[in-house]
């Protein structure tokens, strides 16, 4: 296990460096540091002195990847890439180009994102598994066909429609929830209830179909047939044998996405004015704030790798056949 963790950590480090390098290359292929500076300083009354000062203050006056003016190792270390990348490896995000402490902003905004994402995940999984089981129990009946047709119909609807229709129905017509906003304390329930309901509804159809497939795959295995032949009832075979085995890919799939819940959802947070992390990276791109963009891309990649790592661990725990 220890060796596995060490190997994965080393691989993750190399991947993170690669992700950072690609982000760097892509961002600066579109924007030069001078253009970033001019964008930040505004279109009116622009002047070269201010641009130069802006670049110097934020360290963008150095070459991107290779400094020909330096000698030896400094040719690589006295560059924008090196100076901006090394602190990232220890999660030192520094300050945004507009002067905001990125770590403080991430810390502050992760909470509201989690307040929506976590309940959506938990309630969503419960609802999805329940419906998937029901559909399995309705096998070859008209209810199964009706459910599958309905699910395909619901899957075809855009997520945006769920949000707008949900806001219209629950906030404008029924007037049950605030249409957008966020408050601290227990009041938060009033504000996250609607996004959670909509989040669950919007994501359910696809997952129900997937879970149903997993259950059916398990049902058709030999050991289930044997259990049924030995006289075990359909229901007992399902809940005692099929469900625990089918839950392995479901749970490991959930573990994989748990870390990225911190990053929030752009659409949901934008429409419900939730002060989460969902729009942080987009804001950074729109404002051409490279510090935010690279920090968020790096954080996203790190959390994704963490998710994959946790999946491997959880596999080994859930399935004794798997050895790391």
């Amino acid at each position: 296990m220890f060796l596995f963790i060490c190997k994965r950590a080393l691989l993750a480090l190399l991947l993170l460096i690669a992700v950072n390098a690609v982000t760097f290359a892509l961002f600066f292929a579109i924007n030069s540091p001078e253009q970033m500076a001019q964008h930040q300083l505004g279109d009116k009354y622009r002047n070269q002195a201010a641009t130069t000062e802006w670049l110097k203050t934020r360290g963008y006056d150095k070459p991107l990847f290779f400094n020909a003016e330096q000698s030896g190792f400094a040719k690589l270390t006295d560059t924008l890439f090196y100076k901006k990348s090394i602190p990232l490896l220890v999660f030192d995000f520094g300050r945004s180009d507009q002067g905001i402490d990125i770590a403080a902003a991430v810390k502050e905004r992760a909470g509201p994102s989690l307040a929506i994402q976590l309940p959506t995940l938990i309630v969503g999984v419960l609802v999805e598994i329940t419906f998937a089981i029901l559909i399995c129990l309705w096998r070859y009946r008209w209810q199964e066909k009706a459910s599958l047709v309905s699910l395909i119909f619901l899957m075809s609807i855009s997520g945006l429609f769920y949000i707008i229709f949900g806001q219209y129905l629950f906030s404008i017509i029924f007037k049950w929830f605030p249409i957008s906003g966020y408050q601290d304390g227990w009041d938060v329930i009033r504000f996250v209830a609607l996004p959670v309901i909509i989040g669950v509804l919007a994501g359910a159809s696809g997952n129900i179909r997937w879970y149903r497939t997993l259950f059916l795959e398990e049902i058709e295995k030999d050991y289930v047939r044997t259990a049924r032949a030995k006289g075990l009832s359909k229901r007992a075979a399902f809940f005692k044998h099929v469900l625990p085995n089918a839950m392995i890919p479901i749970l490991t799939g959930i573990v994989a996405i748990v870390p990225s819940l911190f990053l929030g959802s752009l659409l949901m947070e934008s429409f419900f004015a939730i002060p989460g992390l969902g729009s942080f990276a987009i804001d950074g791109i729109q404002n051409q704030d490279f510090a935010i963009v690279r920090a968020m891309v790096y954080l996203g990649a790190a959390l994704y790798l963490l998710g994959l790592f946790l999946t491997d661990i959880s596999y080994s725990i859930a399935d004794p056949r798997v050895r790391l």
Partner: protein
Amino acid sequence: MKKSLLLLVFLLSACDEKPWNNPYPDHERGSNILYTAFTEQPRHLDPAKSYMEDEWALLANIFATPLQYDYLKRPVQVAPFAASGLPKVTYWDEQGRPVAASSEHIAKTIYEITLRDDLYYQNHPMFGLLDPNKQTRKVTADDYIYQIKRLADLKNECPIYTVLQNKIIGFNEFTKVVKKAHEAAPEQHLDLRQFELSGLTKKDDTHYAIHIKGTFPALQYWLTTPFFAPLPEEAEVYYAQPGLMEKNITLDFLPISSGPYQLTENNPHRHMVLERNPHFFDERFPSEGQYYQAKDLSQDRCHVLINLDEKTHCEQEKKALSFANQKMPFIDKVVFSLETESVPFWAKFLQGYYDRSGVAADNFDAVIHIQEDGSLSISDELKQQGIRLHQWVEPNLYYFAFNYRDPVYGGSSERAIKLRQAIAIAFDLEEYLTLFRNGRGLVAQGVVPPGIAGEMPDDFYDAVVYEKIDGRLKRRPIQDAFQLLKEAGYPNGVDEKSGKSLKVYFDTAAAGGPDDQALMDWVRAQFKKLNIELVVRGTTTNVLMQKLDDASIQFFVFGWNMDYPDAENMLGIFAGMNAKVTAQGENLINYMNDDYDALFKEVSNKPQTPARIKAIQAAQNILLKDKVLIAAFYPSNIALMHDWYGPIRSHEFANNTLKYLKVDPVLRADQEKAWNAPWLF
């Protein structure tokens, strides 16, 4: 069982008391709070750095700038704010002798500013660093001087640095000295007090003066902006303390108030809260307007006015003057909530949770009706809710133009002018305003917006593009454009020398979305009328700006928001000395005309006189004669307001208007309750 039933009834009745969809804390219901929204997070709240409209909507209400705009008087004029009166302006020649304002030999102008004696900062822990019992202190002339010094420090990235650098005496020299000091100790906080800026002098704690090279009439307007607000010298030392920056506690995040409101909460991805500054001086609502004085309110003069605009302004002013001489600010707290999407914003406005709203293009046709006389009215549903409409023309100019250095479409040759005139006739701006702006714009016959001294007379029009038929302006027929094309040497849009058809390259950053596509198709169609092919080159804003910088652009659309109510600010974007390609200035068209430049210089250096107004109009005539702009308009705006909000009196330039506003929180709470009863099956 009985107890459970009683509890249920109690809970239901408690629920009935307040709307469930109220987005604000329950304890705020019925409070004297204004609820408004912002769509974009402010980048800067440091008065030396901030230059965005959204940011000034906050900052202008936080700082006591020396001057402000008079809320009611028109044409727009400045009035004292933190200053006890308007600045005393004196003019001096090279030999240091006083001269008249009209003199040709003015070498220096001195603006002497006398501050009020009752200016205090908000309570702030920085004032307690030396004396723990101290929470505030008096605002002094040193604080105003200190802030101007900050504008000259390149570290502060002041957006109007180039405006001031050649105007305030000693500004450039100060910059150089401070730059050297920064380089000597790059990581350390630099106390600007130790360096002299020769153009700033202090007589005592309430008197300071700004010394200007030559003249700078626009200074009076810049003195109304946050750039010239006071900043306590202790602030930068306080915020430079270790640990504060890591918590985002900086001067750029939490400005220090000397004005009517203080920023008590800054959470820019959620909301920002302004609360009454308890130390704000005793300021009263103005008692004099354009049509009325407070004592004349009994005489209804509005009905004698014929002009509809004047009548509307008059009615608004009359209502506003009912607050005359009352102590400001009226509202205790202002909550700015972040709303990035128009759907929830509009829904909340209709539910009564926002006091004021604009009208998004999606809702326009449903809620706004255009009357036969061209005026606007709102739908019956909105009227029943007590919502009122307010419309005004913004002091901005949006224009379509060719790069004046373009070999085919640019320049002042007769050929090029006729070619541009032909295109201007074909370019149906009225249709553009109807299709893409819901009619929210006024076709510009000159370049100086309405309400600014020097605007072209009401009956003036561009006779090349329009003709007057039955007293109404009508765009000339397309045949006239073809005739001009022929005279220019391009019959039917074909170059008679080369035999090639004309082609125009339109560079734009707005070519991606579905709405943009419709706009591009429309622009193409305008050129197609003259058999000219338009090639749209979609690009990023950065690349577009780069193309404008090096004049490698042919046709483009741009705009200018006036900084202050002086035509000089608008004329400057066409002046040769401000050409982008040669002087990195704001003249993106790179228009060059010696006669125009001479008039611009005259306008720039002289105080407002009838001769100056004539010069402004003459300059506009030159622009028209050279057909510098293919099409231009002044955008107009619409606001909807609930009946508990007032007074309705927009100001095109003032940003510190929160203090003039009132809300009726009881009426609002009642209406919210009536409009938001939850549906309980």
